């Protein structure tokens, strides 16, 4: 081999190497996947990469005496998730659980933690309406969707067919709007019990305030007189003065839709104050909970409650069985069912609106999700058929007035002891 031939071979090798390199470069450029989704949602999209979890925030009251309600909500969500095998559209679901403390400020701050995550798809919550009022504002501003299985304050959605004070776009609930609960209590008090003078006590929370206002309006509309509208603060334990005021006012019924423990203290106070034997006492759904019954015991006998009617049916039973199976105990309240429905409704909506790419990447349009929930119609929930209106109310309100006659019968005894049922008519 002479020098010329050798040089030609070298050049040939170099040329081949260059061509291979150039081809690889071009192929790598061509290998880039074409974009298959472009987010056109006006308030943005959540993109979940393949294998990445779908982030869902959970805002519940997980501390204090209301924690039992919050935990029931959480369990309802978990049951709904279990229904899907723990995944959603092939993605695991990561729940970011935050405690609201059942206060507006707690709700606001917990919401901030949730919405700080740009990957957050939606929120399940809250337990307390007071917390929801602040949380939904933050959530809505962030373009998220929140759905609750426990909020019932009318202020959160609509009052008298109009947007209520704390209504926020993107807020939904499967719990009943309390606007009808107060009315149901008033009808029962005026028509069934026959009292004409009533006193109310709330704690400033929009839930309790909404209930008392609904009661007062309905009671007065029927010709009754509200002789006292009193307020206690959350955390108050001394109820003697306010009970004295009730006595002074000459009320025949005291409607006090409070949470634990204020409701407990008030009940014990009423039982201790002379003159209350002839005054009917009526509370709300927040106290329709086994821990309250266990707490007040005999003092609770004769106490009326106005709360959402308990759904019935095979689905309810099945869910109850699942609850017991999963958590090894009977439910402390029935609100986990509405929580289950809320979660199921939300995940169904996500499944509907999410755009899934071949590699598994998900795109969830924020507005699309909201719109999808607003458009829910005849959704078969555990608690019944769900139809979401434009204010986010998805459940048809049906309230029962219950009376605790046998504390030993527990929650089941209470919810079975229905004195009166009121179905809201749209």
């Amino acid at each position, binding site marked *: *081999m*002479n*020098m010329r031939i*050798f040089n030609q071979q070298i050049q040939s090798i170099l040329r081949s190497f260059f061509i291979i390199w150039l081809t690889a470069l071009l192929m790598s450029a061509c290998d880039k996947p074409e974009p298959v989704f472009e987010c056109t949602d006006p308030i943005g999209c959540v993109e979940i990469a393949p294998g990445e979890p779908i982030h869902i925030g959970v805002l519940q009251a997980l501390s204090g005496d209301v924690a039992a309600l919050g935990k029931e909500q959480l369990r309802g969500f978990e049951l709904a998730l279990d229904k899907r095998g723990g995944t959603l559209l092939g993605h695991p679901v990561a729940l970011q659980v935050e405690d609201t*403390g059942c*206060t*507006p*400020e*707690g709700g*606001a*701050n917990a919401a*901030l*933690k949730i*919405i*700080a*995550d*740009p*990957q957050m798809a939606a929120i399940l919550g809250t337990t307390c309406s007071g917390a929801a009022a602040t949380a939904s504002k*933050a959530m809505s501003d962030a373009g998220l969707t929140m759905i609750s299985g426990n909020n019932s304050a009318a202020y959160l959605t609509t009052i008298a067919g109009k947007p209520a004070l704390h209504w926020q776009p993107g807020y939904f609930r499967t719990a009943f709007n309390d606007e009808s609960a107060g009315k149901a209590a008033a009808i029962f008090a005026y028509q069934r019990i026959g009292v004409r003078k009533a006193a109310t006590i709330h704690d*400033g929370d929009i839930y309790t305030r909404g209930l008392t206002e609904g009661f007062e309006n309905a009671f007065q509309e029927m010709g009754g007189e509200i002789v006292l509208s*009193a*307020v*206690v*603060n959350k955390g*108050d334990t*001394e*109820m*003697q*003065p*306010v009970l*004295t*005021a009730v006595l*002074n*006012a000459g009320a025949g019924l005291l409607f006090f839709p409070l949470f634990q423990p204020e409701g407990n203290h008030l009940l014990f106070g009423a039982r201790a104050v002379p003159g209350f034997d002839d005054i009917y006492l009526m509370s709300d759904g927040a106290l329709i909970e086994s821990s309250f019954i266990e707490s007040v015991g005999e003092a609770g006998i004769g106490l009326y409650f106005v709360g959402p009617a308990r759904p019935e049916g095979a689905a309810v039973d099945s869910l109850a069985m699942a609850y017991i199976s999963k958590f090894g105990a009977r439910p402390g309240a029935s609100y986990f069912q509405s929580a289950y429905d809320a979660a199921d409704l939300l995940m169904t909506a996500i499944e509907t609106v999410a755009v899934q790419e071949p590699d598994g990447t998900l795109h969830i349009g924020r507005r699309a999700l909201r719109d999808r929930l607003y458009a829910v119609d005849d959704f078969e929930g555990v608690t019944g058929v769900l139809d979401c209106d434009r204010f986010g109310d998805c459940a048809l309100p049906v309230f029962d007035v219950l009376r605790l006659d046998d504390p030993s019968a527990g929650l089941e005894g209470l919810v079975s002891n229905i004195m009166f049922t009121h179905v809201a008519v749209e």
Partner: protein
Amino acid sequence: MTFQKQVSESMENMSITTRFGVGISLLLLLILAVALTGYVSIQYVRKAEESIQTSREIQRMVLEMDRGMEKARRLHGDFFLQYPDIGLARAHEQYAQPSMREIARVIAVSHALKDLIERSDVARGLRDRRVDLNLYLSSAKRFAATSIESVELVTELAVPERGLEAMMEQDLQAMRAEIGNNPSLMRFFQEMKTFAQDYRITRKRFLMQSAFNAAFRMRSAVENVPNLLPDQRDRLITLLERWKTVTEEMLEVDVAIKSRFHDFALQGEAVEPISTALISLAGEAVEDARAGIQEALGAALAITAGVTLAGLLLAVLIAGILNRSITRRVVRLTRSAEELRAGNLDIHVGEEGNDELSRLARTFNIMAGRLRELVDRLEQKVTQRTAELAESERRFRELFEHSSSGVAVYEAVDGGADFVIRDINRAVESIEAVTREAVLGHPATEVFPGIRKFGFLTLFQEVWRTGRTRRLPLRFYSDDRRSGWRQGAVYKLPSGEIVAVYDDLTAQKQAEMEKTAMEAKLQRAQKMEAIGLLAGGVAHDLNNILAGIVSYPELLLMQMPDDSPLRKPIQAIQESGQRAAAVVADLLTVARGVASVKVPADLNGLIREHLDSPEYKKLHSVHETVACTANLDPRLPPIRCSPVHIKKCIMNLVTNAMEAVDGDGRIVLSTQRRRMDEQTGRALDLEAGEYAVLRIADSGNGISETDLAHIFEPFYTKKVMGQSGTGLGLAVVWNSMQDHGGAVHVESDARGTVFELFFPVTGDPIECMARPSGIENLKGNGETILVVDDEPQQLDIANRILRMLGYQPVCVGSGEEAVAYAEQKSADLVLLDMIMAPGISGLETYERILQIHPGQKAVIASGFSETEDVEKTRNLGARGFIKKPYSMAQLGTAVQQALHEVESTCMEDFQSARSDTS
């Protein structure tokens, strides 16, 4: 076939240039790989450093946010604490507004931090904390909103006059005014007011509910109290309702404020872990980045090491291939070339392949073949020329080596400051008493230390510098090892070396000098001989004549009364005779050959004797201003000398010194022992050995050079003849020193003159220190003294003196008569004249008498006598020698000593001394 073999074969087919090109290209590629590794490592490290910087910036910003948030909270808290004391407006200004400004800054920093994290390539942990950062930002905004709300609520509550608390107070005051002194109302009012005040202290709602209950009862009382006017009742009810409404509003505000505080607490709980986590994450990011740097450096090191190792292996491989295909062949070629250079012209290199080396090998073989041919021819010529050159070299070497002239080759060193000996021939070895091996390579100044002093070095330098041949004039050279006269020429070789060709003319020069000296000596000897002949010729007669003049006056004076008027003239006659005798004695001394006896003597003693002598004292009295000192070496060895002559020398030199000093001055006499080597001795014409030196130095005006050359000549004097000398003083000194085997050396300048007399020392002891006795002691006892003299006058004088001394003199006029007398009679002593004419001499006379009377005592009495005869006579047994003219004492002493076996030498000395100095 292995890879290396394949590569090797492929490379063998390439040209050498291509092989090197491929090898260097591969090495360059490796270098490039190392450089690329370094570049990537640097980029990685730079990126990590940026990450560290960013993380630190994040830490700083988070801390700033945290501090800002904390400050805002503290200010906000201070607002609520301070407004009841300092007023709402001031609290708003001092605390609320700064709090809002601080939170605004926190929000701005939060935004900036968010941007920084999003746009920078920070650690994943930090990027994942975007959520927390969002929360932090949201919480900050919420804090701002909540803070504003709380301040507004407080304002609503506490603003002066229009605030709820103020309105409550106003209503209470109005109610108090309306109630007046109504006790039942006042009780309810006080109860209501107390509960309200308690609420304001504790913020317990049930207390205000109690106040409401009291108000309810008060209202009932108002409605039922009879003594109230309708208007008053209406105003009270209105006031109560308004108070309750305002109070309920206040309660709501309190709840709202409480809610805000709870809000703040929750916010704090939310953001505190965030800032902690962010700081921690930033710190971790810094550490991660640092770890990344370490990893990158480690990786770079490993890669570099790997690439370097690979490079080394590749280099070894390439080197191996190049070695086999190039280096070995080059080495073979080189060795062949070396062999060729070494002379192996039959070398042949393998010519395998067709590359440059193969062509070079072919060329080499052709060149070698041609060289063989050329060398064959050259060798013949070289052999021929070498033989010629060897012959030429041998011839010139022979010439060089056998040249009678010394030839030395020098090489200049130190810029001509010195010259190193490069070669010398045998003549130089002989002349300079050196060996060639001992001096080659040595500096000329080391081998010949005197060349600088005697001007040879300057001559060498001039020749070396100018290149002109210079004649080396006859010049004396000496150093510690050699001395002599050199003459020749110095020239410069084309090589720059200089050559000295010279001859040792020392022998010739010495011969010449000796000849000159001999001539001078001969001349002086002839002169002395003439004088001697003259002196000798007249001395005998003069002394005989003078004997009458010297001796008769003495005899006359002895018989003459002391007051005789003739005594003085007779003494004058005697002194004149004595002076005349002294002149004759000097003449005899100068003429040499004068009879003198040398005995061991102490030179110091002779000097002291002179200094103690009347003659010296007389001389010193004339020259009182001249100080004379003596520094005599007590260890001075004895000398063998004629004391009378040496003392005469001392006297002459001291006299001259005294006269040389004009006015004040000094004379120093000193003695010393001095070792004389051959060289120094040669200058003084002395043999090497031990000498006693007498040094006489004066501080006079010195002697001119002209005079110095003649001072030892007889009758050469600068003095007026007859006044102070005879012109024989220094001639006597010079002749005496010659006669004693010594020498005299004189140096003179304007500061004075020094005479040095060199006497050979002797190991013999000093024999006699006897001193002459008085006339009374010289008396004889009638011994028979045979006086033999051909001078009747001298016989008469001797007869008279001996008779006067108590002897029996028998006077005879010749030797024959003396012998005849001896044949018949005996004598105790023979007083024998040595020269008697026309009969037998004194020597012969004594010989004959001894034959008759062996052991015959005799004393020699002579006016002039050959030294040889005197010595022979003494050797025969003569006991003493007395020189004519003699005095009574001299004769008496000599006779007495001879008779009594006393060494006559001393007597002779004494007599001589007396004779010379009296």
